């Protein structure tokens, strides 16, 4: 008996060792490219092109970052991205709440039908061109409205928030407020909203990350460079190689490999805000996934 136990714990120890090695490999596989990019962005251009950077910055310099922040288009893109994220999130969360809360109330006649109208649009859509035509008829093409309003209904977030209300606010609470003679608006502002902090955090974060990271709507609806969000500018520079800092300087930079370092620095500048904030907000994102897995 005793012998058996010892042998088992030996295989368990072996398992633990292998498992820790596996987890370490996973962490390194994710971390290494990110660390490399950060290091390369701080390294001197010749050492990046010469292949001398492996883990830490070689001959550290801030030249890439200094160049980036002189590039006006990037600053404009950053500003626009902040604008769209703030206002898009505001509108999106408002619409999400205004749809989710009423539809979470069990006694409301027609509730399932209306919810069905929302859910159906997840499965069937008019598609790119018909939506574009609607936006064009509303004279919103190439205006800031076009990247804030057309996507303001996010059925996924509505389902998330609705599930939260259904699961965490008991019917008895509504019944007792009704007996106290409170009307629906009072109930909403005094009882429901104070209880909904966590779900607002989840939905606000979902919206903000989505708007900050996406470029689809800007690609379709915006023409003017002055209106483009950061992701479109990044696409022009990182993917399409349109780095139009003075043409004469461009040739010299290419020779020195500054272009490569600039690309790394740009990746860092674009991703750092989210990657630095999210560990502190991680629990809300995880909470979002959890609520999403409950069927409403």
């Amino acid at each position, binding site marked *: 008996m005793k012998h058996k136990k010892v042998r088992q714990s030996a295989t368990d120890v072996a398992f633990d060792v292998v498992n820790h090695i*596996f987890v370490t490999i996973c962490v390194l596989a994710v971390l290494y490219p990110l660390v490399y990019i950060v290091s390369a962005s701080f390294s001197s251009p010749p050492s990046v092109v010469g292949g001398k950077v492996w883990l830490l910055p070689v001959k550290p310099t801030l030249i890439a970052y200094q160049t980036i922040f002189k590039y006006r288009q990037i600053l404009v893109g950053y500003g626009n991205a902040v604008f769209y994220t703030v206002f898009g999130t505001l509108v999106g969360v408002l619409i999400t709440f205004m749809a989710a809360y009423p539809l979470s109330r069990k*006694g409301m006649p027609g509730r399932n039908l209306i919810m069905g109208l929302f859910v159906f649009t997840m499965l069937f859509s008019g*598609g790119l061109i018909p939506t574009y035509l609607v936006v064009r008829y509303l004279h919103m093409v190439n205006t800031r409205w076009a990247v804030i309003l057309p996507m303001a209904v996010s059925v996924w977030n509505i389902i998330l928030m609705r599930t939260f209300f259904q699961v965490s606010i008991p019917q008895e609470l509504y019944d007792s407020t009704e007996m106290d003679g409170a009307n629906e608006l009072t109930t909403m502002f005094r009882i429901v909203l104070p209880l909904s902090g966590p779900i607002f955090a989840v939905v606000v974060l979902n919206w903000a990350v989505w708007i900050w*990271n996406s470029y689809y709507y800007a690609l379709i609806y915006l023409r003017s460079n002055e209106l483009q969000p950061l992701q479109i500018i990044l696409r022009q520079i*990182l993917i399409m190689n349109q780095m139009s800092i003075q043409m004469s300087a461009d040739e010299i930079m290419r020779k020195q490999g500054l272009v490569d370092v600039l690309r790394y620095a740009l990746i860092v500048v674009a991703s750092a805000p989210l990657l630095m904030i999210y*560990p502190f907000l991680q629990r809300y994102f995880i909470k979002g996934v959890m609520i999403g897995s409950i*069927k409403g």
Partner: protein
Amino acid sequence: MRLQQQSALKAAQSNELRKRFRRYGQLYLILVLPLAFLVVFNYIPIFFGLILAFKEFSPSRGILGSPWVGFKHFVFFFSNQSSLSTVSNSLILALYSIAAGFLPPIVLAISLNEIKNRFVKKTTQMVTYAPFFISTVVMVAIIMQVLDPRTGIVNKLIVGLGGESQNFMAKGNLFMNIYVISGIWQATGFNAIIYLAALTGVDPGLYEAASLDGASKLQRIFHIDIPMLIPTVTVLLILNVGQIMSATSFEKIFLMQNPANMGSSEVISTYVYKIGLLSNNFGFSTAVNMFNSAVNLIMVFLANSFAKRVGDARLW
């Protein structure tokens, strides 16, 4: 007599209904704004789409005034080799992504679940979750930097090991592999969350009973963890396959496209964008999208009813 009773009952019922409508009146008012958005930006486009797919759009005559062409766009779509290949590319890429992407998060979740040190567990979760927050543009830029023939780390490794530098992005047959592998890198940590949650819900008594019976950790994984995960896995898999028509990301594919890989990277969504907005062929683009939407609707319904029968979970 009976009739009177019935009508009294009906009156009472409609009275009750009226009372409920009055009680919830303010809630209906709140719903007006989201419903207005839904109608303007979702239902009017659906209505436009159903018309436009059967018309030759002329900008001067508008949607309603443009001439009907019947099924012309659909016939053209199905008789045209290059448009048909977008369908097969979409399906293959989506199936490949689902097939290759479904196991890694499960393995990661099981592995994390066995880590008892809270710090190690939290750190691993945090790090593997991080790539999820990288935008598509940056993700594709990272792919291009990592695979760069001159300075990318992959080629530096190959050259360092005595091989020859390769231009991976210019090889059309590698497009799908690059798409799928980078997708796994980016999403595994995020997708593991749901499985980890399912494992956290396992009754600790089960583990204790198993160890009392002399089960090793590996045996506990195979006889407790995996059976506990199977319902979640099955349902997610069915639902993923159901969403096959919308499973691939326009944003990512569009950025990864270049002339060399167009043969395997042109999918329905990028095709719809190009013929619609770049070539201004509104009717045809809408028709292609309509076809996609219709198949999507059918697939999701099938998957949903199937998932309901297999497991207790469903999309709605």
